[in-house]
């Protein structure tokens, strides 16, 4: 599904205004350069899912749902469970969205969200094994994007993380034949850390945290860093056909670490209000 706006007439006309504001440290919607928009996270919004979260980041809105079933592990990782994150921009999410197979933007979005979860070690996938090489838990996180207003990367990541934190999976036991048997008991996922994604847009010489659609239309480059709760950076991605100075890269990494802490607290709070 593609949600690419290709012509930016109004945004281009407002470019001068945006640049003028940025030079005074202000943004079109009144925020400071390193202010994120209001983040609202609701958890357990879909009863049939093993875990779910609805996230609003400004006007960007999406739902993540977790479904868990049994699967066979990949041949090269017989001792690890499966974790798959995917995302779809629904046709109702934007006037520019069209139905169809995921385009490169959506694929990048899902892969970057997946990378943050995987590389931070948020879920201890080695604990999702029932019979090594044969039966493992397969955790699928699907994100449905409902309204596009910039920074899908962070919103997607928050929704995935919050939904995983609230996930309760059916407990399986292995019988004498070595086959998994489902029990009534539900257990949480083996969580090790809470990764937080922070995306910044470079517009001219300025780095803007959590860009909205209007800012994304005029951004030269985009950079995302994901940090864990020990202050490590565990995933990163530069995007868009522009470049960044080395100082901007280091500044972005730093902002991700510092600002990530506040958002982590919010995600934790949302996930514990079950």
């Amino acid at each position, binding site marked *: 599904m593609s949600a690419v706006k290709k012509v930016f007439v109004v945004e281009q006309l407002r470019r001068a205004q945006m640049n003028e504001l940025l030079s005074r440290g202000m943004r079109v919607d009144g925020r400071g350069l390193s202010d994120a928009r209001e983040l609202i996270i609701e958890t357990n919004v879909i009863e049939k899912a093993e875990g779910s979260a609805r996230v609003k980041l400004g006007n960007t809105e999406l739902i993540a749902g977790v479904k868990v079933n049994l699967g066979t592990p990949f041949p090269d990782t017989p001792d690890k469970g499966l974790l798959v994150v995917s995302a779809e921009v629904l046709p109702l999410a934007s006037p520019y969205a069209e139905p169809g197979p995921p385009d490169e933007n959506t*694929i990048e979005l899902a892969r970057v969200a997946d990378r943050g979860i995987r590389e931070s070690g948020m879920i201890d996938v080695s604990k999702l094994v029932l019979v090594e090489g044969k039966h493992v838990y397969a955790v699928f996180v699907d994100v449905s994007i409902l309204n596009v207003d910039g920074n899908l990367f962070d919103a997607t990541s928050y929704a995935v993380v919050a939904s995983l934190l609230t996930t309760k999976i059916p407990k399986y036991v292995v019988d004498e034949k070595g086959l998994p048997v489902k029990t009534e008991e539900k257990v949480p996922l083996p969580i090790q850390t809470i990764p937080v994604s922070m995306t910044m847009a470079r517009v001219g010489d300025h780095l803007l945290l959590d860009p909205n659609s209007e800012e994304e239309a005029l951004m030269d480059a985009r950079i995302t860093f994901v940090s864990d709760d020990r202050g490590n950076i565990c995933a990163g991605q530069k995007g868009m056909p*522009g470049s960044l100075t080395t100082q901007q890269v280091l500044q972005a990494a730093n902002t991700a670490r510092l600002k990530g802490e506040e958002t982590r607290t919010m995600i934790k709070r949302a996930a514990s209000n079950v």
Partner: protein
Amino acid sequence: MGKQGGDSTRLINEQGIRLDGRRIDELRPIKIEVGTLKNADGSAYVQFGKNKIMAAVYGPKEVHPKHSALPDRSVLRCRYHMSPFSTEERKNPAPSRREIEISKVIREALEPALMLEDYPRTAIDVFVEVLQSDGGSRCAGISAASVALADAGINMRDLVSACAAGKVAGQVVLDVDDTEDKEGQADLPIAIMPSTIQVTLLQLDGQLNDEEFNKAFDWALGGCRKVYELQREALIGRYFGRNEKPMEVEQ
């Protein structure tokens, strides 16, 4: 990427020597050839360790379908593809999600260096074919593609040079190879325009603390500069002969 730091002396021994005999701050051997394909407007072949990568550029040329043409600049299109025989297990030849993402980041890494505004209503196609992969194929692919673009005579602000650093067995290392990528803890590929040190690609897989990130970033930048020297030498060799020096351009 595996998380086990476990058997830490396997990947780097007590003397700080890696599995393939390199020091932690050493690049793999690199070979760059220019103009390797007859039909392409520009081409380059790069060996980067065991990576064997062919890059070809076609264009500026007519855009098909026509509605995707841009009135003020050329459309840059990029395809990164791995041959089925390039990996340990046969790779399905259909483009994977990984290849689609890498095609996108390669295009975005090259675009800042190209003066696309000089070729309105045209397309420039860049093909990066990985004949054998050995970790760091996107970096080698970018370095090859940028040489191929120069060979095609596309107006450029700079070359684009790419290199990765990472973390293996608890240590920051330059230029992560396949085994290190799979068993190591982090991989940080970057691409820069070396003259102005503008970062045009950056990805990170794996955990790095503040200090490690800064060190790995710094080492990767250094790796990019070495790659740049080799790209420049290859282009000079192609167009001025091995023993001739090009005219020095005043900066």
